[in-house]
């Protein structure tokens, strides 16, 4: 026994000795972290390939770029509002009294070699990060990727978008330039408007009166520690869930709701996704090399008694900015107290309600459909006309308000009156989303009809044939099986019914009003006018069975 044991051990040892260094390192790690178990499940994991699946990657990679450059910036930035006289190399500011935060931002831009580049990469990266999150969210919305089991990941992603907005806000406030200080002034005014506790909140956040000396050190802590810390945790959760639940895919040959078709993590996806990180970083670097962003040296240090026109936030806060700009002035004075409705309505009612509706959408839709199954095959947006129309209405509304948020610039560049633009946005606020909804829905229904035609009659080939009796007809080519499957293989929901008003004994049934709302929503989504019935197998067979039909 002892001999055989020692033999085996020897054999094992000699095996190990022969193993390449990489394997030996892996063995060592496996003995402590059991990495082979983890790798077994992930190394050859399949990822479907589609460009729109990479929008989230753009967001993820720009987030990493922002973290890398942000760490570099903290080494040179001084988060202090103590006032100093500037003596750096930017001549037009020499001798000007400014905060240390602003002075150190000038130093990063002019005296630290490469500092300007890193600053610009950081800021461009932030703008692209938020834009990428936005379009990623649109992709997920319009393809129905938020359906079970991915509702929670939708909420995580949504939270990341909101946190990204606030991280951006705290970040662009840090240089303490005239524009960002005006943004802080806005924030202060908005907090003051909070009913009952507004003045206390403002005093506590700013450490006293505006501007005080506390807000930049505090925002610095939020910007570099608190918010990115939470975001990092959420990003990890978000990506882990994508990994764990496996990615969705579009319908296609071989792709079913029970499988995932694509290339394995090792090597193709690693090379593509890893390479894509470098491409994203590279594009941002080239942009930062050639396009100025936030040139704080021309904007000047913040002083509460100065302002510049074109006072705007970064684009991702253009939506609340637009809401505030189009709101007419309205203050209610009751019993010695003031309700600042012109700020409460846009910032404390409309904005949170809109955000909440976005977060809750997956739950609302699954309540309307009553569908509790998992969905891994993506919807074609045209096949869910009402959802697509809701989404487009929201996007159009968002862009109307972005125009509102930059109304002064549109006025300048288009030579229009700022008051006319504001009025246009005020009316557009109500009209544009409704029109967009109607138009989008009609387009979707039209596309559904076209799909139906195509399935039943084949594709128009453009070839005109003359029949023996002289008639000219266009030859329709039959679709491939994959095309038939993509165009008609999906399922269609049928609208809910309330059921008979009376039961079998003629007694009036009580119907829950919530249920009534659900039924009417369901009818709006899937009833007549909500979708075009897709061709049934019977219809298809009937038309294709007799040969020689056109």
């Amino acid at each position: 026994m002892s001999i055989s044991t020692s033999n085996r051990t020897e054999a094992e040892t000699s095996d190990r000795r022969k193993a390449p260094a990489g394997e030996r390192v892996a063995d060592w790690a496996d003995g402590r972290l059991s990495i082979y178990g983890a790798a077994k499940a992930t190394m050859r994991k399949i990822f479907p390939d589609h460009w729109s699946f990479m929008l989230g990657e753009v967001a993820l990679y720009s987030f990493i770029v922002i973290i890398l450059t942000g760490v570099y910036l903290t080494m040179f930035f001084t988060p202090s509002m103590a006032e100093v006289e500037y003596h750096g190399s930017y001549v037009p500011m020499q001798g000007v009294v400014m905060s240390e935060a602003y002075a150190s931002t000038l130093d990063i831009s002019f005296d630290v070699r490469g500092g300007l580049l890193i600053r610009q990469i950081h800021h461009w990266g932030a703008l692209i990060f938020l834009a990428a999150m936005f379009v990623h969210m649109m992709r997920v919305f319009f393809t129905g990727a938020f359906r079970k089991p991915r509702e929670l990941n939708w909420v995580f992603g949504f939270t990341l978008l909101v946190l990204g907005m606030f991280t951006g806000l705290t970040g662009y406030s840090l240089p303490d330039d005239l524009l960002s200080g005006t943004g802080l002034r806005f924030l202060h005014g908005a907090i003051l408007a909070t009913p009952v506790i507004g003045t206390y909140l403002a005093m506590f956040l700013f450490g006293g009166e505006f501007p005080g000396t506390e807000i930049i050190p505090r925002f610095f802590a939020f910007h570099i520690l608190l918010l990115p810390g939470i975001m990092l945790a959420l990003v990890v959760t978000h990506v882990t869930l994508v990994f764990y639940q496996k990615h969705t895919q579009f319908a296609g040959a071989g792709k079913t709701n029970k499988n995932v078709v694509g290339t394995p993590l090792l090597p193709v996806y690693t090379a593509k996704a890893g390479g894509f990180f470098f491409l994203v970083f590279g594009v941002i670097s080239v942009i930062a090399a050639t396009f100025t962003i936030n040139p704080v040296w021309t904007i000047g240090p913040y002083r509460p008694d100065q302002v510049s026109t074109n006072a705007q936030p970064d684009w991702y806060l253009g939506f609340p900015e637009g809401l505030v700009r189009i709101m007419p002035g309205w203050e209610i004075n009751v019993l010695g107290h003031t309700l600042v409705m012109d700020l409460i309505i846009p910032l404390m009612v409309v904005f949170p309600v809109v955000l909440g509706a976005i977060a809750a959408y997956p739950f609302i839709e699954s309540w309307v459909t009553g569908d509790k199954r998992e969905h891994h095959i993506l919807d074609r947006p045209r096949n869910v006309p009402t959802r697509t129309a809701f989404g487009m209405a929201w996007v159009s509304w968002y862009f109307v308000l972005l125009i509102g948020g930059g109304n002064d610039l549109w006025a300048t560049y288009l030579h229009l009156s700022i008051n006319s633009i504001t009025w246009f946005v005020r009316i557009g606020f109500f009209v544009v989303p409704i029109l967009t909804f109607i138009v989008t829905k009609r387009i979707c229904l039209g596309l559904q009809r076209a799909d139906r035609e195509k399935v039943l009659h084949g594709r128009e080939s453009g070839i005109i044939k003359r029949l023996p009796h002289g008639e000219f007809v266009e030859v329709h080519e039959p679709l491939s099986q994959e095309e038939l499957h993509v165009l008609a293989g999906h399922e269609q929901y049928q609208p809910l019914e309330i059921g008979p008003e009376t039961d079998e004994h003629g007694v009036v049934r009580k119907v829950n009003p919530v249920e009534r709302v659900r039924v009417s929503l369901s009818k709006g989504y899937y009833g007549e006018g909500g979708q075009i019935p897709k061709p049934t197998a019977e219809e298809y067979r009937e038309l294709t069975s007799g040969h020689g039909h056109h």
Partner: protein
Amino acid sequence: MKKLSARRRHPLAALVVLLFALAATGGLYTAFAPADEAKANQASSSSLAIKEGKELYAVGCASCHGTGGKGTTDGPSLVGVGAAAVDFQVGTGRMPAAQPGAQAPKKKPKYTQAETDQLAAYVASLGPGPSVPTKDQYSPNGADLANGGELFRTNCAQCHNFTGEGGALTEGKYAPDLGGVDEKHIYEAMQTGPQAMPSFPDTLVTAKDKKDIVAYLKTVNSDEAHTPGGYKLGGTGPVSEGLFAWVFGLGAMIATAVWVAARSTKAKKS
């Protein structure tokens, strides 16, 4: 300045100074102090210039501004606006106005500089007002850029944007882009407050301060201005930056993603 003192000995100078002294009584004297130079300056242009200016005025200006510059419902009175105002309005082509509107835009001047000077001489003769500044006054040499920047942000940036790119005002009016505007005209605009713009007389922004402002503006907004970070995208702040990030930034990302995810070319089946 030597030339100026020589002009003070012009026969008309005494009359002008007298007129001025009568008009600007008490404290108003201080407010109109630069007019002292103005009148002396104008006086050097002979009465002939005033006469010719009057003829030009009658043809090109009187229909709106009235005979003798007294103003009509179509145009304000020009009594006391000074030569600087005429030099600015006519020299930048804003006057004569092409059509009524929220604001007369800058356009190709209709009059030569000589004719403008004659018109200015005539209008200056109607009442005391700021004179056309001399090159010494507005040239950026020896100016304090930092002071100019601070003053620009206090007095100008609210309408003209932090580097003078311009901005919108109410009801279609606007503060124009100051890029490429002649130094003299910037100086005159501050002196006279054309159209919607308020004036900044020397009592509020001193002559030295005006020189600093002009110098600062030329440093940050001209063809020669440095934009270390790269192309400045209009210099109007976050809106153009956001638009760029969406169109070009995200556009480049999506183009790249399409390439990464696209199927590679398949071999032709033989």
